[in-house]
């Protein structure tokens, strides 16, 4: 009989790292499930937690090698998880506001530098800003690094989507 060896996953690949972490967190979240699990608010709360868990697992899988993962981890750590006091959340918000203001200034300077020379800067001015909003941590990056981070971010997002899709399909045939 032929021994069929199915293709095996690299246990240290991004996908497996993310899958492991995410499943672990997911099981934790589902273990904490309260009795009334079908109410919309509960589901919504769980959705937020699951989404945060997905982002966190992905960011942790990438460690700090990427700017966007670092920014995402920072955001997740300082983000009020709903139970914190209003004071801390306002403090955090003001800190974030200052940070975004500072980053916006950086962005403006970078965009001005890109727009001074060459038509590329002008072309990329508006879209680059949009991209900066999308990619976490992209506010204070120049265009080249922004594109670099976007490429890696897209790769990780596709992995995330695939893994989550498989999980969702598995649990709802």
């Amino acid at each position: 009989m032929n021994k069929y060896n199915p293709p095996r996953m690299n246990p240290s690949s991004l996908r497996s790292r993310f899958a492991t972490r995410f499943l672990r967190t997911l099981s934790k979240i589902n273990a904490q499930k309260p009795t009334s699990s079908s109410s919309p608010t509960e589901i919504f709360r769980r959705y937020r937690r699951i989404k945060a868990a997905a982002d966190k697992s992905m960011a942790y899988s990438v460690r700090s090698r990427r700017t966007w993962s670092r920014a995402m981890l920072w955001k997740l750590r300082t983000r009020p998880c709903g139970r914190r006091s209003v004071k801390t959340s306002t403090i955090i918000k003001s800190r974030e506001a200052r940070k975004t203001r500072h980053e916006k200034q950086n962005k403006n300077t970078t965009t001005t530098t890109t727009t001074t020379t060459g038509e590329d800067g002008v072309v990329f001015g508006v879209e680059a800003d949009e991209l900066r909003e999308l990619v976490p941590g992209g506010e204070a990056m120049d265009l080249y690094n922004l594109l670099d981070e976007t490429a890696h971010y897209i790769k990780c997002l596709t992995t995330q989507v695939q893994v989550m899709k498989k999980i969702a399909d598995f649990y709802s045939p």
Partner: protein
Amino acid sequence: MNRALPETLQWQQQQQSYFSELSGVFPSQTSYLCFDGGFMSSDSVVTREVKPDNGLETAWPEQGKLEMGSFGFEFEPCGPSYNMNYAISRTSSCPLAAAELVSGKMGSGSAVGSGNESFKKRKADKLQNSKAVVEDDSMKKIKAYEEEGESKITGPSNSNKSKHKKENSTDTSKENSKVSEVQKPDYIHVRARRGQATDSHSLAERVRREKISERMKYLQDLVPGCNKITGKAGMLDEIINYVQSLQRQVEFLSMKLAAVNPRLDFNIDNLFTKVEEFPTVQEVANPIHYQHFNPAQEVVSETALRRTISAPVTIPDASFLDSSCFAQIQPSAAWDDVELQNLYNVGRFH
């Protein structure tokens, strides 16, 4: 590829006849363009995620103190003698430079067609692509490069030798990469092309543009359906849309996962099946658990499903949205062994 390396080594020894060797090495490639292509292959192996670019239009700034300096590049004013070194250094020791530097270098290097061409920015001279012109000036250049080579053999320091370059501004600028010594420079050579401005700002801008366009090409391959779009703005819009759609998909899937209550078991079982269901194959790694998954993937998933379906049998109130779901999770620890055994059995039957 390796064939480029020994050739470059040859050139190091025989600087005088480098050009004849060049023509000999690439008999079919007489133009600057082809030469570029020859090295692209060698460096494409090394470059990290950067695609080799037909960077014929790359122009490296000769002064490192331009805005490019912010990217962490060091620019080398004298060109040709260093391009080969640059190529060699990159091919031989890729992990040597810091990550950013490498990525930046790779980006720029690949933008230059894998950084093979040594660009020398001369104040008054422009580049010419024809080999004949290069041959004419080869002798002059060799002398200039020799001088520069000696002065440049200082190691991978980030020195900005703009003044040195200005001293040799008499020679015509060329684009061939000439080999002097094997070094590991961290700088990028820029050369003004024919008909283009030669001031440092435009050169730096050109380098940036090429790096950016090379990044865009890479992104174009990542984002599906982007091949038809050619404009940069359109490309960026596509990228933005794609990132947004991916983020929305993640949100939707997490919502779905929140709504679909977890049936029973979660971790190990899911891991096994999920891992096996992955279509893409990475390196073969054999953790002990996986070795039992000999059967086809559908069988495994079927068994997993069967087990999950049969599990409620052991627990009477098995309705998914029930509070008993909560109770079902508790014995999951015991089930893990059972499931594992089942899986092993399945594996044995095949």
